[in-house]
């Protein structure tokens, strides 16, 4: 969403043409890619901000960047529940936050890693491995009564895989949350 008055927007002709643009719910998932100074307490500041403003974080990942002074936080927020412009404006107020990008879904590659521990005796193991193959998953551990399968992909793919294996008896599932990078030459 572009707020009125940002560079690049056309000059509105009359007051009537201006439509108040805040507080709108976009109705979709947003992936926010946030560069922060690598200082102690930064994550607490971000998490605390979300908590006290009543914003719900769906997933959150933190990791280093190619610059050791700077870390990247990738988090997903539901734009149906929260006004994203208010979320990003509040984040911008944190002194340690350097840059925020609300990634456009079409121009972004997102990935998540998930580990599934599924109960599987001999008879079921073959079928599970076939499903794993379809999802390009890897079996990383096998016992007599269970397997662990690693799957990488978009959230949708991981949820689809979960749906497939749940009937076998899903013992445990671990997900990392999404990371995201913008397509093309320019930096995220």
């Amino acid at each position: 969403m572009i707020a009125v008055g940002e560079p690049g927007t056309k000059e509105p002709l009359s007051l009537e043409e201006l439509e108040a643009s805040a507080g709108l719910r976009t109705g979709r998932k947003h992936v926010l890619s946030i560069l922060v100074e690598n200082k102690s307490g930064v994550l607490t500041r971000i998490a605390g901000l979300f908590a006290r403003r009543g914003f719900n974080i769906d997933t959150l990942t933190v990791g280093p960047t190619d610059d050791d002074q700077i870390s990247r936080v990738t988090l997903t927020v539901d734009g149906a529940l929260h006004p994203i412009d208010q979320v990003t404006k509040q984040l911008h107020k944190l002194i340690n936050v350097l840059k925020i990008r609300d990634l456009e879904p079409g121009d972004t590659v997102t990935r998540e890693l998930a580990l599934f521990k599924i109960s599987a005796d001999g008879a079921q193991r073959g079928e599970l491995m076939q499903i794993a193959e379809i999802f390009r998953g890897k079996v990383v551990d096998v016992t007599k009564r269970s397997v662990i399968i690693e799957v990488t992909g978009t959230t949708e793919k991981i949820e689809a895989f979960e749906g497939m294996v749940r009937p076998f008896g899903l013992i445990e599932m671990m997900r990392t949350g999404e990371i995201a990078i913008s397509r093309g030459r320019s930096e995220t």
Partner: protein
Amino acid sequence: MRAVDAVMECLKAEGVDVVFGLPGGANLPTYDAFVNGGIRHILVRHEAGGGHAAQGYAKATGKVGVAFATSGPGATNLITPICDAMMDSVPVVFITGQVRTELLGTDGFQEADTIGITIPIVKHSFMIQDPKEIPRAIHEAFYIARSGRPGPVLIDIPQDLSRGEIEYEPVTDVRLPGYQPTMEGNQKQIRQAAKALAAARRPVIYAGGGVVNANASEELVEFATSDRFPVTCTLMGLGAFPAPHEQWLGMLGMHGTRAANYAMDEADLICAVGARFDDRITGKLSEFAPKAKFIHIDVDPAEISKNVPAHIPIVGDAKRVLAKLLIEYRALGVDPARLGAWWERIEGWREKYPLGFQDSTDNEIKPQYMIQALYEATGGEAIVSSDVGQHQMWTAQYYDFPAPRRWINSGGLGTMGFGLPAAMGAAVGCPDRLVCCIAGDGSVQMNAQELATCAQNKIPIKVFIMNNGYLGMVRQWQELFWDGKYSHVDTGEFPDFVKLAEAYGATGMRFEDKTTLVEDMKRAIATDGPVVVDVRVTREENTYPMIPAGKPAREMVG
């Protein structure tokens, strides 16, 4: 150089002339540096008093206030002032001691996670991890506190690190890549705003504390009077536009004037400057100013469209934006006569609904009259602080503030006990001005201990306690909205404020007669040193007019 001596050098480089604080184990090294540090330190009796004093100093002078406390309970006692400064955008730097680094996380004696506790209520904070970081942290703290939307910044220094030796070099370049406030305002948007104002038939300027913070009062007056724009201010903005004035509608909001609230309700264009559409202003949000479009000027982009969507948002410093807006507006050559009908409507409200109260027929002092009397006794020229409650609203209604930085109160957080220490800080910052505190009998005891500080340091504040023996505002709400059942609001006649004042080394007085009140107040003001006056007022009097909570402005009562 000792790191603590560098602290003193940094403070002096930032122009600090006074620190309010209280020493303890974890900041002993810093206090050793005060001995020959060349900075005035005022020993308060409770850290909260020191924090509010720093706020009062900052609000009255426009400079950054500074408060010191030790670790643990010293730091937790600062929580209320820190939060208050955050809510009202007051530039204060808080420097707290912390336990030695080897004790961090061990629940050591007087250890509290000060940084963790305060994260939600600071603009920013620094945990010192190496003595070398101290000078840069202090300068960055001052820069962050005073720039953009001002606010509190905290620096937590572990005791062992403050004992370190460092090579001190003055820091002149503050680089904060993640912090670059937008000051100038988008020229195209400003032009749009000017055009919208020129086209408006029922405009209102709604100014808040941001105008005071930006020292933009002159620009506001110049812009408002370049046409006949009606002006109203929030509680925090009082004084930004001089009262009384023919274009002044009075304060708006829950206890604002009908003229101001009705004008907002019928306006076709509202120009908000440094104000944040708080719930005490809007009442029922969905029915707030239903006919209006909004121009919103604020230095904090997150305030714009937070509560009320703005049609023309302008992110920038109020002083600079208003100056540019004036130029754009003048260039349009608008005829002020177009606002004739609007002013007729406003004049109608002014005549029909002036602020007023039923005065007593005997010698009884009505609380509203008490404020009028103080206005008369001070010629309207005092700096006035207040606590929170009925007396605060009556002061806002009946004391016409002619200039900014004269009205010092806790608006956002609504902190009882704010007024007395804030007056103390204001008096230290402005020694040539008369500083009065209108206190509530409930509120004043929450920081009455600072009377000792005032007496010891000869800080001549004049405290007028509006004594009705009740937690008055709560009593009013119980009367109006809880079927008149009073629950724990009667404070009786305790303590004896005259004796209390004398015990603290201040002068105590008691006024009970309306007919001599102005003269009595002049006598109190003329008395040297701190003075506490117990003014006995009508016990049960309600603050009117009033927009009941959650109701629209049209449904004002009283």
